[in-house]
């Protein structure tokens, strides 16, 4: 018979956390907090180091024999290559301004989720091997030896950061902790430590052009499913073109929106809009992914996956590129694409053929965000909208981290929303725009096995949604990111069950009055259109 604990043992509850310092408290890999390891075959596809079967729960992570040398050499190389990294390692004065700004820290209370301490995980090793003070004084100078336990800690916490950059907004020195995480992940990749939710989509994208691994004919079929739905709802048949040379514009949405609800509804809205204004555009079955999980792997991988956008634009001979509602995709495009894969001397400065607006802000990348494009159409009165079709939605807007903080896309989505629906309420100031809270599942953390961690990280966002839900009756959380659309529905289900999630262009699609359309009775979700009261009758 199993040994049962005695009554007094059961009642002996320890209220206090461990008394050891942060350097001496090892990571405990509890289910629900970590992600499955990258599949060996995906690593092989990408030529990444040390493909093998392993799990973070295992004692032995099957590292290469000289793993320590590889990591330290990798760090040395990156310190030389990225001046920002050297600055970030040296300049932090531990003022604590970032400490309470991370959503994972706010939700979990785990001090190692404070951005300053997350960075310190790497910085302590940097001090030990790359600074004189650290070499001489060791622990007294905040330095520590790189051991397997430290490596495990890196894995645990660098894959517990969504690279959302909220902390960097508050750092007086401008230290970008997301970039520290990025370097941390790059180093881990050198010895084969990565997660499957990142590595397999990257391998799919590398082989087939998109994260989901949809082949060209499959992609065409799935777009046709969307146009069939649009025809059922509106009576208007869209005629899409793929890989068409000589089109004016190449349109690249994130592939998540082709397949997963509610992203599909948002993509339908975008396709309807582009049809309605008669834009001469083409989709590509090769550059069929706006997102770029390479960003969550390494700089080299990000560059590799991103290169197809310009390659395809060049091959098809388009004038400029239009991008869909995606989050991190825009960080890559806005901050890295031009220097990684430019110059784009084969493209022209994007000009809207409908309004004549020159998108000067995209001079270097030649790539326009769909909400910039749509907001311009609305401002110039080029589309007809009936916002009452969205009357049953009381809408708020979640600024997706990357479009907000990495490209300053703050006004355009709001301008669109205010024109396509009659009920719009902002969440509190400290939770939106550049201070927006992450969904908790960005940077490759949107898996199911870490659901508990996602709920912790998403709490600050959900808490603000709950506030407007209770105050204004908000029932729809809109956003412009495919990962948000995948991650926010369960977050809402757990914290604020009466709130749904949609892309901004789903609401555009509902409100858009199309030439030759039949009387609209259903929304893009095939739900009755109109107010809740109308539907009750």
């Amino acid at each position: 018979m199993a040994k049962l604990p005695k009554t007094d043992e059961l009642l002996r509850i320890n209220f206090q956390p461990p008394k050891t310092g942060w350097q001496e408290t090892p990571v405990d890999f509890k289910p629900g907090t970590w992600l499955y390891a990258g599949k060996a075959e995906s690593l092989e596809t990408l030529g990444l180091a040390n493909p093998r079967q392993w799990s973070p729960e295992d004692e032995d992570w099957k590292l290469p024999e000289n793993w320590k040398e590889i990591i330290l050499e990798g760090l040395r190389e990156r310190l030389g290559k990225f001046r920002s990294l050297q600055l970030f390692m040296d300049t932090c004065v531990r003022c604590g301004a970032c400490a309470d700004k991370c959503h994972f820290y706010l939700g979990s209370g785990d001090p190692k989720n404070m951005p300053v301490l997350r960075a310190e995980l790497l910085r302590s090793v940097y001090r030990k091997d790359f600074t004189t003070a650290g070499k001489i004084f060791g622990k007294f100078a905040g330095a520590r030896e790189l051991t397997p336990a430290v490596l495990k800690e890196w894995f645990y916490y660098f894959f517990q950061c969504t690279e959302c950059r909220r902390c960097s907004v508050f750092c007086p020195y401008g230290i970008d902790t997301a970039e520290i995480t990025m370097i941390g992940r790059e180093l881990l990749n050198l010895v084969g430590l990565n997660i499957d939710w990142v590595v397999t989509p990257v391998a799919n994208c590398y082989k087939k052009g998109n994260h989901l691994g949809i082949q060209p004919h499959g992609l065409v079929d799935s777009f046709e499913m969307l146009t069939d739905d649009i025809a059922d709802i509106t009576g208007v048949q869209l005629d899409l073109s793929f890989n068409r040379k000589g089109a004016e514009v190449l349109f690249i949405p994130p592939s998540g929106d082709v397949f997963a609800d509610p992203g599909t509804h948002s993509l339908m809205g975008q396709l309807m809009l582009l049809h309605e204004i008669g834009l001469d555009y083409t989709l590509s079955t090769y550059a069929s992914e706006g997102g770029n999980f390479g960003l969550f792997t390494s700089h080299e991988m990000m560059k590799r996956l991103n290169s197809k956008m310009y390659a395809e634009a060049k091959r098809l001979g388009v004038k400029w590129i239009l991008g869909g509602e995606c989050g991190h995709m825009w960080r890559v495009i806005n901050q890295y694409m031009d220097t990684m894969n430019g110059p784009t001397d084969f493209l022209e400065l994007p000009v809207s053929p409908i309004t004549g607006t020159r998108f000067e802000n995209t001079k270097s990348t030649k790539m326009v965000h769909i909400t910039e494009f749509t907001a311009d159409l609305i401002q110039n009165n080029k589309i007809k909208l009936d916002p009452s079709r969205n009357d049953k939605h009381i809408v708020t807007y979640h600024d997706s981290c990357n479009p907000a903080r990495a490209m300053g896309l703050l006004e355009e989505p709001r301008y669109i929303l205010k024109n396509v629906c009659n009920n719009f309420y902002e969440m509190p100031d400290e939770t939106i725009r550049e201070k927006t809270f992450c969904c908790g599942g960005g940077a490759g953390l949107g898996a199911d096995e870490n659901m508990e961690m996602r709920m912790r990280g998403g709490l600050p966002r959900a808490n603000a949604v709950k506030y407007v839900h209770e105050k204004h009756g908000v029932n729809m959380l809109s956003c412009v990111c495919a990962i948000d659309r995948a991650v926010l529905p369960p977050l809402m289900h757990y914290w604020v069950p009466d709130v749904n999630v949609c892309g901004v262009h789903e609401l555009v699609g509902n409100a858009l009055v199309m030439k030759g359309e039949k009387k609209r009775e259903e929304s893009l979700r095939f739900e009755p259109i109109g107010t809740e009261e109308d539907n009750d009758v």
Partner: protein
Amino acid sequence: MEQAALTLKSLLTNNKENLLTKWFHLVLETYPKETARHFGNQKSQFGNPVGHNIFEGLNGIYDELSQDMNEDRMFKALDRILRITAVQDISPSQAVSFLFLLKRVVREGLAEELRKGKVLQELLDYEDKIDQSILLAFNIYLECRETIYKMRLHEVKTRCDILERINQYNN
């Protein structure tokens, strides 16, 4: 008249601020020191969602236990805290332990008054109510955990459906 003023109910009402603050800080002590300090800061309900919700939850629970308990309100107050602790890095017993702490707070905080007055029966009834709320808390905690598992299952199923469709298309 003096005896009447010393009922447990009035003691709990008169000493609410003091007892609630003590309870709140005892609950926060279950977190690491730096975190307890931050969670204890009540300046912003959006910058400190855990601290804010724990405080408001404890406030609601305190009121319900001090008066005639309304089950719906009690459920909401408990849910506010347990929905958070159910996803934090603590054991199930730790997640519901904050209610046990209230017994300690009341016994210690009102020690002198309890000795003087004739409120033993009232105290026993009060502690029975705390026990009841612990049982309710256990249900809520489990419901939260089940929701997490159901959400995981839903995501796995959705992913399988998507993969199935992709495979169909790719063939």
